[in-house]
């Protein structure tokens, strides 16, 4: 175990996948990837492959869960059986139930749910392939799907984890760094209002290490937030181009 841990960071401070300590894994986002859902987004964050979909605001089911002064937000974080090394039972685990709750809570304050009383906004997050930090990538994509559904948001929520790898605070731990690392600190953040909406930690950190890690996480969330905004813009540019093509068909060459 210890021998492996030493290899997680080499003498030049480079990590197993060639990253620096404050470097994110490659991230790709795409908005509006599903046909039936009111809003959807797909994210590739490292080896994470996550699909998020939003339905609503729609009639709340069962009816008694509806709230008189706001929309109910429902959230399901779920991992596909094939998303991990050993097949996972499709039944929701205690981990998935807890994450569904904290992810919902991380998105609640971003949604203007008071505009849609008695309705339900349903968020589905399917982890198709899991790497480290899947709850964070799930939040990043779910917030995009909410925006894509046209639901008024105060801000888009971005999320990223920070870990402690081989004794050093390292941004965005991958699967192996998460499993063999000494700590994991997932953070969800809204930059304009300086709001931390998700914060969890396990492992061992001193107060100084925590403060350093939190600064790193917030900085990364700001970068991810930019990527989210670009992904949203890309969709609307492509929609506009398609519409223009439909209305002004190119002159047929005779």
């Amino acid at each position, binding site marked *: 175990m210890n021998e492996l841990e030493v290899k997680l960071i080499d003498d030049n401070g480079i990590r197993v996948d060639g990253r620096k300590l404050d470097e994110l894994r490659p991230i790709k986002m795409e908005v509006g990837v599903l046909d039936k859902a009111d809003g959807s987004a797909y994210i590739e964050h490292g080896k994470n492959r996550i699909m998020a979909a939003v339905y609503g605001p729609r009639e709340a089911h069962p009816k008694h*869960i509806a*709230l008189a002064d*706001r*929309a*109910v*937000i*429902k*959230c*399901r974080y779920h991992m596909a059986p094939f998303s991990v090394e050993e097949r996972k039972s499709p039944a929701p685990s*205690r*981990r998935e*139930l*807890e994450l*569904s*709750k*904290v*992810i*919902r*809570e991380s998105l*609640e*304050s971003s949604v203007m*749910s008071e505009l849609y009383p008695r309705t*339900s906004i*349903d968020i589905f997050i399917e982890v198709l392939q899991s790497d480290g930090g899947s709850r964070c990538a799930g939040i990043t994509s779910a917030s995009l799907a909410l925006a894509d559904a046209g639901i008024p948001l105060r801000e888009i929520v971005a999320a990223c984890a920070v870990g402690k790898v081989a004794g050093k605070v390292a941004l965005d731990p991958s699967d192996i760094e998460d499993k063999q690392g000494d700590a994991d*600190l997932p953070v969800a953040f*809204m930059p304009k*209002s*300086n*709001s*931390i*909406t*998700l*914060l*969890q*930690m*396990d*492992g*061992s*950190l*001193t*107060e100084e290490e*925590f*403060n350093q890690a*939190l*600064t790193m996480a*917030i900085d990364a969330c700001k970068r991810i937030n930019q990527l989210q905004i670009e992904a949203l813009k890309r969709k609307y540019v492509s929609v506009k181009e398609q519409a223009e093509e439909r209305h002004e068909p190119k002159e047929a060459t005779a």
Partner: protein
Amino acid sequence: MSSTPQLPPVAKVEQKTVVDFLVKGKRIDERGLTDYRSIKIETGIVQKANGSAMVHLGKTKVLTGIKIELGQPFPDTPNQGVLTVNAELVPMASPSFEPGPPSETAIELARVVDRGLRESKALPLQTLCIEPGKRVMVVFVDVYVLDHDGNLIDASAMSALSALITSKMKEYKVEGGELQTKDEPVPLGVKNEPVAVTTAKIGGNMILDPCLGEERVMDSRLTVTSGSDGNICAMQKGGMGSFSDQEVRQAVKTAIEKGKEIREIIRGATART
């Protein structure tokens, strides 16, 4: 599927009272902003359990029973004993608790307590292995919430730790392929003392140990669990609101300090037995 909870309606005047007090630096039960309610810990309540502890945190009551049995290790950790934490929100504890499968609140509570114990390495799981890959000790921590007057996480963590510290178990050895045991039970040998400290945020004010009246109007909470070495071993933000980064840093600092005080209370209570 997790959905926005339907909380019993809170009267505007109730909310206003809590906030008005906080603005003046006071609380509805006359405590200071970083004061805990009185903490009383009784151990050895349940003789049939390997260890037990009842924590009274103000009017909140949590009983934890420990059962230690022989069992099999998980395939990925053949050399380690097993730690299982479960929490029951007993229906008698609150009008909002109902019988049935564990709610997401109960699961979150159990997992936050579990994380504190596991990540601080409070239990020497290696020494709980009898025969690698075959026989290990399995430690069941069952947290029983009996009366809910707020801050279940901190009360449950105190109760689970106190029960584990005072737990005794049979010692097993394998000699010549035979399982042997001694009559005299031995302590479990707890190595670290993780203490959870929960900060609640109400209208921009930060307080420790929210009672139910305060929890009902809080925006969000942050639990920070720290070990005997003062290091943070687990954290959990809950509730639908948010914290600024300065608020989080302040909460962490306060929680580590307060954790030391609570640890002394737990040491005092568990040393008696």
